[in-house]
């Protein structure tokens, strides 16, 4: 099964659910689903900023497993980080996400 994650809420969304569950499972090849994309809203975008330790691990896994990483463009501009993200991480909005996923669509979209 192919899934896409949308990190929509703040709080422990990235530090806990991504950082302590999804990412380690991906690193250990035991997540149980093929992740095709992750899209980040609001403060969750800080993980995509160059230098973030969790982001370093995420980007490495994303490159290995061909996972699209995209930050919400408005959220990134609002936080002045749009041009400070890891190489290969895009900013965009729903049209960009859907276009990027058109050739490799997920079976399920999980909003966290």
């Amino acid at each position: 099964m192919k899934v896409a994650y949308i990190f929509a809420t703040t709080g422990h969304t990235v530090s806990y659910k991504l950082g302590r569950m999804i990412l380690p499972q991906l690193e250990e090849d035991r997540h149980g689903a093929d992740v095709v994309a992750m899209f980040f809203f609001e403060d969750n975008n800080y993980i995509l900023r160059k230098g973030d330790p969790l982001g370093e691990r995420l980007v490495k896994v994303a490159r290995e497993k061909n996972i699209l990483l995209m930050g919400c463009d408005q959220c990134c501009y609002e936080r002045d980080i749009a041009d400070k993200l890891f190489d290969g991480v895009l900013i965009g909005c729903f049209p960009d996400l859907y276009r990027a996923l058109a050739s490799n669509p997920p079976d399920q979209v999980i909003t966290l």
Partner: protein
Amino acid sequence: MRPEPCCALGGRSPRDLFEAALRRPRWTGPSDHIGHGRDPAEKLEVIFYLDVDDGLVVRADYRATTCPTLLAYCELLAHWVAGRRTEEALALRAADLVAAVQGVPAHRQGRAALAVEALHAALNSDGERRSERR
């Protein structure tokens, strides 16, 4: 009344320009010069509306697809072009606009060319006053 050029091209962030674009009062009257820029692949569109008097841009407005990067570029152009000579505005290049708005990642900087394309199309249009609003 002829406006003075309001601002240098550079020095504003995409965040501030996007916020200004959201608050921009809409000019609903007819315009002398209307120009379009389109990117069908990305489904993006810009329309610039200008009033030009004796070679001077006296009023500028735009409509654009709701992409924050595109809106930021258009907002800066609309501020910058009011009060300027048409020759000066036609000399502006997309690279100038890209350089003026710091903080836009490379894969989004192509939006500047679309904004400049619409502005130049308006400047080069026939000058027939008409209403064309969406």
